[in-house]
């Protein structure tokens, strides 16, 4: 992984919140250690090399792989944790999964108002100010300093998958070809893991994935086509656009 | 052309004993400059984040920014020093301002070089490249850096050409031409500060303040060195009325004009004079009055010290003249005692001649010591008419031929036995002034009673 994270906790007393936050971040660190593709000694790397037998897998790895299986089945194979060259790439699942775990820690600790942004995946709870939800901007693929739209979220998750950071890293598992139908896909869902997986899948599926996602747990979808046009589904209304 | 000194006693005679001379206060200009530097330091401090220093290159760059900020502020001070702002002139005096300008110039140029070096070195460390590779990288990524580069080159050119060694070899006009390009350099270098400087990019207050600082400086130059002098020129309407050789390389130039009375020039002061004719138009020179100006006439006596001064002998009557000033605090007002000693050498005899007239007119008792290499070099000698209150002591002869220095303490005491009770005004070449000051100090004249003006 290796991603920047920010946490916004309005009006919290510092010491108790700090401890919670530390725990939450520890969850993210642990996930990173386990699932880092760039670290040859991480569990996922060793598993990919076949050094770990199915019975020796950690619960986390097992869970992540299960999620990946399900997502692959639901998308007709478009979503896949196997790259065309056969190597294992769990990033599409792990980021959201780990971030959701961190969110669970915060909730368990009693926080009801917060906004976590883990490398672009957002989990929001409660209201930052009375009367409005969290305003989550959707990054403009062309310019990291601008947003295309602002979505208001209370108790939900927003995840974005896009080609503008890492280039062609998302493959359509059905064809083995790099995904090219969309430049970015943003999904709003109840939890981060779902949102993350859906976002990656929508990107892999292309424009047809926008409506598909609505049937598989997405409350709203915002997708950007290569020519710059924006298509939406669900509760993301046109007037939310900047 | 000779004039006689007035002999009539004044209405009120000045005190016979030495009154306590006012101590020269530390100039407000100096204080303001120091305060400004401290303010710049504080500005840098609050804008530099310590995290930067986690990498050594970051710390170097931050200190480099401090050097740049200081240099930038001092550039404004440097320009203001010679902007001929009347408040500065009255408070500090033209000659001191020029001396400060010279010193500060060295400091500024060195600080600019330091800034450039630190930014390159620090950046090279941060980017893990050689300093040589860092330069094009910086030029590519920072805004207006090419402009700043040209500006820096101009700064260096001005700095190098003004160094004592170089300045001696250059013709005044060439040196002055190079010097003028500093304005271009300042302008070019300004933008990279506002557009890319860390402390400015993040604070619009800082940008506004800096723009105000530079605008005020530019405005001062415009007003007091361009607009007002032009207006004055039209108002005063000065022209050359006569050119009189005074022997041994000295030439007197008489000026007349309707607006002369508005000049309020005093004996001992000098004007910045620009003759509006071919060959003289390009530069203005400081020339001292050699006579108390009357309502319609003024006289300057000029020594042949350089290309320009020699050409003065060829001026034609009727030539228009633009003047600025008067400048200088080498005036009769500074005399705190009834008895006064005036020492003049070379072209310094001009202001001495004017001061003698003024002081006698005010009731002082004056002794004039006139130093020259040869007897026929004693210019204006005929104007010092002996009288009960004016004694004229010519001291011609080269030291090598005489075998002694007539201005040494022992000889000076023989010439003027009561020198300890006199205020001393000395005007002439720097070496002569040094000797005289040393001698009279040794003879008991307090430092506050010695007044000096360098010519040549």
């Amino acid at each position: 992984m290796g991603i920047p994270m920010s946490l916004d906790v309005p009006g919290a007393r510092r010491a108790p919140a700090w401890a919670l936050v530390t725990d939450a971040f520890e969850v993210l660190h642990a996930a990173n250690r386990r699932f880092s593709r760039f670290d040859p000694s991480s569990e996922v790397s060793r598993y990919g090399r076949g050094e770990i037998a199915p019975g020796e897998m950690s619960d986390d790895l097992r869970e992540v792989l299960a999620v990946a299986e399900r997502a692959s089945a639901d998308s007709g194979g478009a979503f896949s944790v196997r790259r065309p060259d056969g190597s294992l790439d769990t990033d599409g699942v792990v980021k959201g999964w780990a971030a959701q775990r961190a969110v669970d820690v915060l909730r368990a600790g009693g926080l009801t108002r917060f906004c976590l942004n883990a490398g672009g995946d957002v989990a929001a709870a409660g209201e930052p100010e009375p009367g409005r939800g969290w305003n989550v901007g959707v990054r403009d693929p062309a310019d990291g300093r601008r947003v295309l739209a602002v979505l208001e979220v209370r108790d939900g998750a927003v995840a974005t998958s896009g080609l503008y950071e890492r280039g062609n890293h998302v493959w359509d598992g059905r064809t083995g070809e790099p995904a090219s139908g969309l430049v970015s896909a943003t999904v709003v869902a109840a939890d981060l893991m779902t949102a993350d997986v859906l976002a990656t899948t929508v990107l892999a599926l292309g424009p047809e994935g926008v409506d598909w996602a609505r049937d598989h747990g997405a409350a709203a979808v915002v997708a950007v086509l290569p020519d710059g046009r924006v298509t939406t589904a669900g509760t993301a209304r046109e007037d939310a656009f900047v | 052309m000779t004039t006689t000194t007035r002999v009539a006693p004044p209405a009120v005679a000045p005190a016979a004993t030495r009154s306590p001379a006012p101590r020269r206060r530390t100039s407000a200009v100096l204080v303001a400059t120091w305060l400004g530097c401290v303010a710049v330091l504080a500005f840098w401090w609050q804008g530099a984040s310590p995290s930067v220093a986690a990498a050594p290159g970051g710390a170097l760059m931050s200190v480099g920014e401090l050097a740049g900020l200081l240099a930038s502020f001092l550039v404004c001070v440097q320009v203001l020093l010679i902007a001929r702002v009347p408040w500065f002139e009255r408070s500090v005096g033209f000659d001191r301002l020029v001396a400060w300008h010279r010193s500060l110039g060295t400091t500024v140029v060195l600080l600019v070089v330091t800034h450039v070096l630190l930014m390159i070195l620090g950046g090279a460390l941060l980017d893990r490249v050689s300093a040589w590779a860092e330069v094009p990288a910086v030029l590519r990524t920072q805004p207006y850096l090419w402009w700043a580069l040209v500006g820096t080159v101009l700064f260096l050119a001005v700095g190098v050409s003004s160094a004592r060694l170089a300045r001696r070899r250059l013709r005044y006009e060439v040196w002055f031409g190079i010097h003028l390009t500093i304005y271009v350099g300042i302008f070019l270098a300004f933008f990279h500060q506002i557009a890319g400087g860390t402390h400015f990019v993040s604070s619009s207050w800082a940008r506004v303040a800096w723009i105000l600082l530079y605008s005020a400086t530019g405005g001062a130059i415009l007003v007091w060195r361009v607009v007002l002098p032009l207006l004055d020129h039209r108002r005063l309407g000065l022209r050359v009325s006569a050119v009189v050789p005074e022997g041994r390389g000295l030439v007197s130039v008489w000026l007349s004009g309707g607006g002369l009375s508005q000049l309020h020039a005093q004996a001992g002061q000098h004007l910045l004079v620009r003759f509006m004719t071919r060959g003289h138009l390009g530069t203005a020179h400081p020339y001292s009055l050699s006579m108390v100006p009357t309502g319609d006439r003024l006289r300057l006596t000029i020594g042949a010290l350089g290309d320009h001064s020699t050409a003065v002998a060829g001026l034609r009557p009727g030539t228009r003249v633009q003047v600025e000033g008067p400048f200088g605090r080498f005036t009769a007002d500074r005399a705190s005692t009834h008895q006064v000693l005036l020492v003049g050498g070379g072209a310094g005899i001009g202001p001495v001649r004017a001061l003698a007239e003024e002081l006698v007119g005010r009731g002082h008792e004056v002794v004039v010591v006139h130093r020259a290499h040869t007897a026929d070099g004693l210019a204006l000698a005929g104007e010092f008419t002996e009288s009960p209150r004016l004694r004229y002591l010519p001291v011609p002869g080269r030291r090598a031929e005489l075998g002694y220095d007539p201005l040494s303490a022992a000889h000076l005491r023989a010439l003027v036995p009561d020198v300890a009770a006199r205020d001393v005004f000395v005007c002439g070449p720097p070496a002569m002034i040094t000797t005289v000051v040393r001698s009279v100090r040794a003879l008991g004249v307090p430092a506050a009673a010695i007044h000096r003006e360098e010519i040549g």
Partner: protein
Amino acid sequence: MAARPWRGTLLYVGAVAAMAAAGIAKFAGVAPEVAAAPAAEATTGSSGTESSGTGSSGTGSSGTGSSSAAAGSADSSGSSDSGTTDGAAGTDTGGGASSSSDDVTIVGDVEQTRYGPIQLSVTFSGDTITDITALQTPSRERESERINQQAVPVLTQEALAAQSAKIDTVSGATYTSQGYLESLQSAIDQRG
């Protein structure tokens, strides 16, 4: 006219001495390695004020890609209270924050990304983030890698869209710290 011939040079030497002293006073205390557990650092901050409105955020960079996993102590986030995010006279933490003895600098682990190693350093002044600096950046992409203090203040300045639309956070595919730093999210975090 050379009454004091070396005065200018002496002035310069004095100025250099003053600058060196200032630099040492400002920077000498910063250790390049990480500090102790975040909880301890949090309580050393001075401001404990809570605002009724919004506005606290912390940032940390996660992840160790390298084999030297120095556990969770390397990174942390803070909950902090600062001005509102409404674009009113909010604290301009981009480049104008004052440094106090409460400054805490936390240096993240070196993260291995597909482009190379990235390492971030985050400074908290009390509760607010005052600086994010990249200590190591990937060796490719030379032009964009030069992350210096200027990039952050520039972002802070240009995050006008965030001000007017009251954006709290941005969802985007930021997989590298580089992308983060150049993103609006970074600017939002900077403002606190």
